[in-house]
């Protein structure tokens, strides 16, 4: 990995964030007028105009855009029309809930998905392998809201063990985490299995065995580290799907996180809030992928030197 390779990646990451934020800025403004959402359909036309003037919505879109960029650079990310407060404050209030949900889900996904995939690959074509893949396909195919409602019926209505929704205690966390983990762990199990299967058939595995390593030693020293490389890519997508998948799960379980805030803010055209959340998602995706890219260069030195032409 060379400094030039790293610089290229970082520049590309920054451009991606700028592109995403600019697209969202323009699309949101062209497709709906916040004044109607804030003041209501029957509001006085003068009041609607006054609202637009107050927030600069009557200005040409490129003026608004330049103003937005300039404000962002000065650390001002706008005002939430709906919550009547700083938009960043509204977003930051929800962030811990989303991070908690993401963190616990991420932990369980990795703890369940990777071992399941490795185990299935090592027992290729056995009934355990087939069962693991069957469960994985089922978990991946089942929409979040169906599974969520099913869990509510089972754990809350029938057995009365867990609350149906909300947040605050560990009991509130169980069903949302379970709902998201089922789908995510299924993806991880499938990816790990194929990555492992590919590695297990590589010549270096035969060499390892030939030089006298036991099967489990060969797997631990050679198969697992090599299978980890494509798996790192999945982690990049994983962060994005956690936030996107969280939208549905948060709605079903009334979890007060960023996903729900994003949906309601888009529907209400609470522009500043949407922009901050999109910026956060974009940054976290780009950052994860940047780390993945840099990690790739470190894990596999061929990647960095090939890309930079050295």
């Amino acid at each position, binding site marked *: 990995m060379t400094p030039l390779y790293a610089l290229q990646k970082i520049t590309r990451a920054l451009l991606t964030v700028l592109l995403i934020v600019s697209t969202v800025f323009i699309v949101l403004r062209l*497709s*709906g*007028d916040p004044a*109607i*959402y804030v*003041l*209501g*359909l*029957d*509001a*006085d*036309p*003068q*009041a*609607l105009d*006054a*609202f637009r003037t107050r927030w600069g919505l009557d200005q040409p879109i490129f003026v608004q855009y330049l103003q937005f960029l300039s404000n962002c650079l000065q650390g001002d990310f706008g005002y939430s029309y*709906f*919550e*009547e*407060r700083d938009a960043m404050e*509204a977003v930051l*209030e*929800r962030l811990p809930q989303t991070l908690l949900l993401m963190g616990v889900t991420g932990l369980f996904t990795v703890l369940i998905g990777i071992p399941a995939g490795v185990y299935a690959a090592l027992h290729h074509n056995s009934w355990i392998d087939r069962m693991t893949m069957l469960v994985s396909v089922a978990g991946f195919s089942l929409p979040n*809201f169906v599974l969520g*409602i099913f869990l*509510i*019926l089972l754990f*809350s*209505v029938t057995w*009365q063990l867990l*609350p*149906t*929704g*909300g947040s605050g205690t560990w009991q509130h966390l169980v069903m949302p985490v379970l709902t998201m983990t089922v789908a995510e762990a299924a993806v991880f199990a499938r990816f790990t299995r194929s990555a492992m299967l590919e590695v297990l058939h590589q010549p270096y595995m035969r060499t390892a065995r030939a030089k006298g390593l036991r099967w489990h030693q060969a797997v631990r020293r050679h198969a697992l580290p090599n299978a980890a490389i494509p798996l790192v890519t999945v982690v990049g997508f994983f962060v994005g799907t956690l936030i996107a998948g969280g939208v549905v799960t948060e*709605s*079903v*379980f*009334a979890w*007060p996180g960023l996903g*729900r*805030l994003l949906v*309601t803010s888009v*529907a209400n*055209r609470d522009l500043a809030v949407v922009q901050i959340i999109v910026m956060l998602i974009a940054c976290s995706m780009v950052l994860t992928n940047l780390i993945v890219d840099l990690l790739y260069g470190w894990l596999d030195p061929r990647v960095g030197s090939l890309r930079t032409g050295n």
Partner: protein
Amino acid sequence: MNRTSRSLCSLLGGVLFSTAVLADNRPDLTVAVTKNPSRLDPMAENSNVNKRVMKNVLETLIYTDSQDNGTLKPGLAESWKRIDGKTLEFSLRQGVTCHNGETFDANDVAFSLGAQRFQGEQAPGWGIGRQYLGGLDSVEIIDSHHVQVHFKQDDPLMELRFANWMSEMVCQDAFQAAGSWENWVKQPVGTGPYRVTKVKHGDHIQLTAFDDYWGGVAPAKSVTFKVIPEIAARIAGLKTGEYQIATELTPDQFELLQNDKNTDVAGGPIRNIRVIIFDENHPQLKNPKMRQALSYAIDRQLIVDALYGGHASVPNGLQMKVFGDLYIADHESIKYDPTKARQLLKEAGYNGEEISYRYLQDYYTGEVSTAQILAEMWRQVGINVKLELKENWGQIEDDAKGRGIFNWSNSASYPDPLGQIYRLYGPEGWFQRNNTYQSAEFNTWGEQLKGTDKAKRIEAMRAMLEIYERQDPPGTFLHTLPMFYGVSTTLDWTPGDTGFMDLSHRNLRIKG
């Protein structure tokens, strides 16, 4: 301390003790809702969800008793009298305390309607409050418990305006202590049976019983309006006892709750009629005969039966029984008549040109299904309607080009035609302001409706219903809009017809 004083003390102590025990035994209620208001002053957010919550916090001078056919009863005012056609005098109730401890009096009435909150174009509440109280000229304080409100011209609705949404009174000291309108709308202070104690945006609003309330003890210790967007989750929570009331139910969910001994269904039509609007600027809709044909081609009863299982109804024109004398009982509303529709199309010289019908993804209950059914009904008489699903209101309102038919609902903000047909289709309404409809004749009758002579008002209403339905329709009615709730059987609660959830002692009892 003599014996009498000791007895008095012990008696007083006993009363206080039993009140405290009573207060402690009251339940904490949770209401599962789809959405909560963001800005809690009515003049900052004119929405059904705001009305649902905040009328428990802020009160009007006159109380509308929804359990007694909407009879007007004393509220913050003990009595009121008309001085003339444009002046109303209120005698305020004594001993009313605001949630912040200040005494409610005439100054608070004047302040609630004054320049810092409502009166004048620079006031923060003017933009929203204007369509309700815009006719107000001034408020005159006679003494600390008497005020006169003066209107600019004769107004038959004066009493109703102070008995309905948007005339809620606030407390001056608390408003000024908030420091700004932005702060105030987060936690308004009034005189109601509950006070706002906690607001977490997008999650919940908590009201707590106000124990110094003048009207009686609130039956619940606290009420939390919790946002649960998924209907299945609201119903599940109601069944497990986490929520005591769940809002916005659809008829297909009724059986689930009615078969459970712990839950039941409440509610019915609210003061709102679902309508469709015709934009007369559309080349095909300029001719009134085309709009009449669209209206005759609709089998309204079929829509009600198919989508609401009989839980909504077809009204007798754009009017409601709560209008009292102004409800024209012998009015013959337009009926489904496909033959007549075809004949009108022929007379209008229609040749199958395309007419756009813009609608949203179920902003109204069953909006998509309704649009599809309507398009099919129109197709059967030979009208070529193109369905255009839009993402938001702005795409329907702002983009006038090519707009033909679109959806709306007509709520009666007052139990009077002035609060519905003329408010919406008159010169101040959205349709005339945005040129989808113009009718000088309709406006002339509307001005007559604004008078105080009852016979003349009835005559005007008859004429306006004819114009709306037969002569020059700006749109047409479909059915009444209902609001259904799932309710725990531990509560004895009857919803009113405005969307306001009255959880005071007047309307809610806890069983057992």
